[in-house]
């Protein structure tokens, strides 16, 4: 008893230690605060990767531990990004507009101001009115609250409807895919109020920090992302190591039996679904300021499927597995798709990795499923067990 708890604590310390080392290391090598060996754009890639690890952690909680194969958690991630993006875009545009009107003979009326902001933001979709969904966009605290509330409430309503009707397994997965698809299609519309397929852009510019260089801002976000991942990890370990973890794993393995123990399975699923949706949203809210742009394509159903693939490759039901899977696959993926990998000339055909990477990933996924069903984490566990049986 004591023993397993210590081992678990040890692994938490190792994880937090590695994360801190990684963050400090990247900082010391960065252009912003270090010797400049690592470019700012790569620091952003690393920061984004940490956010992807966080959403993978959420995926592991909901799928690996609770057995709900949600193929819609990237929708919550994207919504988190949209919510913070609205403030970033609005507040920055507001500043620009105020600055440009500062020399006018008459100070601008509030109407003129909002008209100018509206034209700036919504000109691309042929409008100048600020849609109702932007009501709170002027306020950072309100918009931060929406980062949590909008995906949280969507998950609550969706989950309540789905779990109450006892939709499980493949049907639930399909339903979650339908949810992301519907959301993406809605956002693609020009009159969705969120700039249609243009999405929100310029998110890397932080309002009020115009004087701060991107080199430094990238470090801020790297630290914020690392902090969020660390906290998320601690929270997840706390949640799954107690009786709650026992119950949700039991639900994963045999939900009928759990019902006869007197637990309301639907309530537990709903709690896990909503909590993980909120974690995903927070990860998204940290990701998109580093990416600089968000558009509805980010929420495409395939993104949520990738998320499941990362967790499967990393190893389900062991939190670090999700982190390892997300980090390795997304970093390798950005390497392959960046065009840095030399093409492979086969004489009759040249393999362009930008196109062929997905085939490679699919092949890797098949290999893992066949030969390491527990994922990379499972291989690692077996290694550890062999060393100290």
């Amino acid at each position: 008893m004591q023993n397993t708890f210590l081992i678990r604590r040890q692994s938490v310390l190792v994880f937090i230690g590695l994360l801190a080392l990684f963050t400090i290391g990247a900082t010391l090598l960065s252009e912003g605060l270090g010797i400049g060996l690592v470019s700012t754009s790569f620091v952003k890639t690393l920061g984004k990767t940490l956010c992807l690890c966080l959403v993978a952690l959420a995926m592991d909680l909901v799928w690996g531990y609770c057995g709900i194969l949600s193929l819609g958690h990237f929708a919550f991630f994207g919504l988190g990004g949209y919510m913070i993006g609205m403030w970033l875009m609005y507040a920055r545009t507001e500043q620009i507009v105020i600055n440009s009107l500062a020399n006018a003979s008459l100070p601008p009326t509030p109407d003129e101001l909002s008209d100018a902001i509206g034209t700036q933001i919504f000109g691309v979709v042929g409008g100048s009115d600020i849609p109702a969904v932007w009501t709170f966009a002027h306020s950072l605290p309100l918009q931060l609250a929406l980062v949590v509330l909008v995906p949280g409430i969507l998950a609550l309503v969706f989950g309540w409807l789905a779990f109450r009707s006892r939709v499980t397994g493949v049907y639930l997965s399909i339903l979650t895919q339908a949810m992301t698809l519907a959301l993406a299609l809605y956002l693609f519309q020009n009159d969705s109020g969120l700039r249609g397929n243009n999405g929100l852009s310029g998110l890397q510019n932080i309002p009020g920090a115009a004087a701060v260089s991107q080199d430094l801002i990238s470090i801020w976000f790297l630290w914020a992302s690392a902090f969020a991942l660390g906290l998320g990890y601690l929270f997840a370990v706390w949640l799954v190591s107690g009786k709650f973890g026992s119950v949700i794993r039991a639900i994963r393995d045999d939900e009928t039996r759990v019902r006869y123990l007197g637990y309301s399975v639907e309530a537990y699923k709903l709690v896990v679904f909503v909590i993980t949706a909120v974690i995903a949203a927070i990860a998204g809210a940290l990701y998109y300021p580093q990416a600089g742009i968000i558009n509805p394509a980010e929420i495409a159903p395939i993104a949520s499927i990738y998320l499941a693939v990362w967790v499967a490759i990393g190893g389900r039901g062991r939190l670090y597995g999700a982190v390892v899977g997300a980090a390795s696959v997304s970093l390798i993926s950005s390497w392959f798709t960046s065009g840095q990998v030399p093409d492979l000339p086969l004489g009759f055909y040249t393999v362009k990795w930008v196109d062929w990477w997905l085939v490679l990933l699919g092949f890797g996924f098949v290999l893992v499923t066949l030969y390491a069903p527990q994922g990379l984490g499972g291989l690692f566990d077996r290694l550890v067990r062999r060393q100290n049986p």
Partner: protein
Amino acid sequence: MSKNPMLLEVSGVSVTFDGFRAINNLSFQIASAELRAVIGPNGAGKTTMMDIITGKTRPDTGKITYGRPGKNLLKMSESAIARIGIGRKFQRPTVFENQSVFDNLVMALKKNRSPLDVAFYRRSQEDIKKVEDLAAEIGLTEQLHRMSGELSHGQKQWLEIGMLLAQDPKLLLVDEPAAGMTPEEREKTTDILRKAAKTRAVVVVEHDMEFVRRLNCRVTVLHEGSVLAEGSIDHVTKDQSVIDVYLGR
């Protein structure tokens, strides 16, 4: 009768699966500290009867009331029925194999079951003591920290009974607890069940006549979804209709 009031009353229950009447106008009663054996040939509807009481299957007609004042079980969910004190052991042993015996028992302990309470649950010395006592009762003290999946078939059956006892139910429904057990294991199972029935009602479904004889309790014989005979084991084994459909084979 007043000393031992009725706990469960099933009256006129019928259920049909695709036109096949699995339970046919079934009525019976269980008193609050009673050990009852239910026997009957394969397909007699024994498991289905438990499904109906525990809320898994909804009957087409009939009434089931439980406790005092009588609650209508037909309006409640499975988990709510479990929370008001009806525990069930399945025919096939179902324990959570990826978790330790200890964790299985802790999960079953009678405690508040809302997600929030469970998330902030800290096991008290008292709970640990309870779990250890239960483990002793079902003979799994040595196995307390092993994975349940590593247990033998008989041990899994006991663990499942232990989980039921941990819930501290007023009514325990046990489906074929002795299936696949060795004679010694059966004997121990009988003891556990007889002891449990001192403070609560226990309904045991069983095929094995020797096992039922050892339980030494009132017997209900089910056949084609309704009660064929009821009484002491000697009474029902002498009943001609029972001999015809069941014992004579």
